[in-house]
């Protein structure tokens, strides 16, 4: 099936809007990039000269090595725990009918439907009460709240695609539940698990509110550190803040490139497959 785009007025408008969006997006990202390499940039199109000094300055001043280590630790822990906890639950929710299923589904949906600040403030209060907040453990616990439901929601369509007959056949051959999981489902679900992990990873690295509310000085992730340096503007040179922002962006872009090897962004919630093109 081929659908050629002919240049009707509607098509021009649509492509025009998209192009305008992308031009502005390029401007937003490009201005940060150019500024981070610039020496002095006031009322001109481009900075007066170019330098890479700001990266060294940002790296030293903000202790970026520690921040990056924390970011990596937090995100990997969150990914591992949320997949381990979320996968079995999403299997049961996708396959089984039992009393209270809809209620349970709603309960798992709520943390995604609520703005993070709404539950983040009471959660941070509770985590401070029990001494978790201000440390790595508190940041991980807080980030689990949206991540587990997210894994459940992402995995459900993948599990529904696996033919139950395969599992029944395995059961007929005498496999127990954990064997069905490790031998049958896990290999079939690898694309789904990778997709969910990568999405949770991207969300956790980019998650501002929950980390912001629960992090202490030694447990800031990159995005929170970036926020603090930005809101304390005037102390640091604008360019070194920009350099830090570029480091954050490139980290996210690397993650994104990895992510898109496993996830087609349009198939995130799709249930029916595209037509085969012939």
């Amino acid at each position: 099936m081929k659908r050629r785009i002919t240049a009707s007025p509607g098509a021009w408008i649509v492509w025009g809007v998209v192009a305008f969006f992308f031009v502005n997006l390029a401007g937003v990202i490009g201005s940060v990039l150019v500024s981070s390499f610039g020496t002095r940039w006031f009322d001109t199109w481009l900075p007066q000269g170019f330098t890479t000094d700001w990266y060294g300055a940002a790296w030293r001043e903000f202790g970026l090595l520690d921040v990056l280590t924390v970011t990596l630790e937090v995100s990997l822990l969150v990914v591992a725990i949320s997949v381990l906890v979320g996968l079995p639950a999403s299997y049961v929710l996708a396959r089984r009918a039992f009393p209270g299923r809809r209620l349970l589904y709603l309960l798992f949906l709520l943390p995604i439907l609520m703005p993070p600040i709404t539950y983040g403030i009471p959660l941070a209060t509770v985590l401070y009460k029990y001494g978790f907040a201000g440390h790595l453990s508190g940041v991980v616990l807080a980030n689990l709240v949206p991540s587990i439901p997210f894994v459940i929601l992402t995995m459900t369509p993948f599990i529904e695609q696996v033919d139950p007959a395969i599992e029944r056949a395995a059961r007929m051959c005498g496999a127990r539940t954990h064997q069905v999981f490790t031998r049958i489902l896990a290999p079939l679900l690898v694309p789904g698990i990778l997709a969910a992990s990568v999405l949770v990873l991207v969300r956790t690295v980019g998650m501002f509110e929950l980390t912001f509310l629960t992090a202490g000085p030694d447990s800031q992730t990159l995005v929170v550190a970036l926020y603090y340096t930005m809101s304390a503007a005037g102390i640091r040179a604008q360019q070194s803040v920009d350099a830090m922002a570029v480091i954050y962006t490139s980290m996210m872009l690397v993650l994104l490139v990895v992510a898109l090897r496993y996830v087609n962004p349009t198939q995130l919630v799709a249930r029916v497959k595209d037509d085969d093109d012939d």
Partner: protein
Amino acid sequence: MTALRHRLAERGIDRQLALLLPALLCVLVLFVYPFAYGVGLSFQPSSGGVLGAYRTFFEDPYQRDTIATTLGLSLPAALLNVAASVPIAYRMRGRFRGKRLMTTLLVVPITLGTVLTAEGLLNFLGPTGWFNRILPGDAVRLTNNYWGVFFSLIITGFPFAFLLILSYLSGIDPSLEKAAATLGAGWWQRFRRITLPLLAPGLATTFCLTFVLAFSVFPSAVLVGDPAGSTRVISIAAYHAGYEAYDYPLASAIAVVMGVIELVVVAVALGLRSLFYTGTTSSGKG
């Protein structure tokens, strides 16, 4: 004992449901309990009786107006994101060269997050930024006010809404539309009678998720907005109460108010969608 187990199994309750327990436990301990704790805390202010914290919030116009400010930012932004995504996604749902590249590019702003977008907007739209250099005439003030925050919501929200709607659209079986085309339906009829009703649940979900993103706007409202005035959104009020005034009951009360408003909007969106959906099905039959 065995008999009981069999009878429960007939109703769908058996040991396999234990697989739910870890996730359920996490949600109960990390979400339900803190939320209940927060609600409880909001009814125990240091002064003013049970409803003192809520009274403090609603009697002070500086606090109360944050609701209108937040809705004034997030509703238009979410509606615009969804409304712009539908025609664009409808046109792009087929296959064309560069589609993968375009969807990849659209994921970029989602991953950037609000903090980086804020930094970029300050540079790009600022008084000496590239945008104002291209525009003729005097510099337009687009940062540190309503528009800065609004643009940041569009930049992060539009790709998100677009990708969701695109995936819902590609989830609709194309043979349905082909059948309608065979029966002589024009593109508007196909869109109105086939695609839109099937898309309605997706539209409602997309609107809700985009609205949640826009409603909880915090970093961009501080960084590109005017956090003491025109973009003092409700999350800033909650943060100030909790972390700068150390008034946890008030902070929890604001969080509860936020949650309630958010759920009301989501409920209205889902309610509208159910009205809309039954309407079109019946007209299709009639």
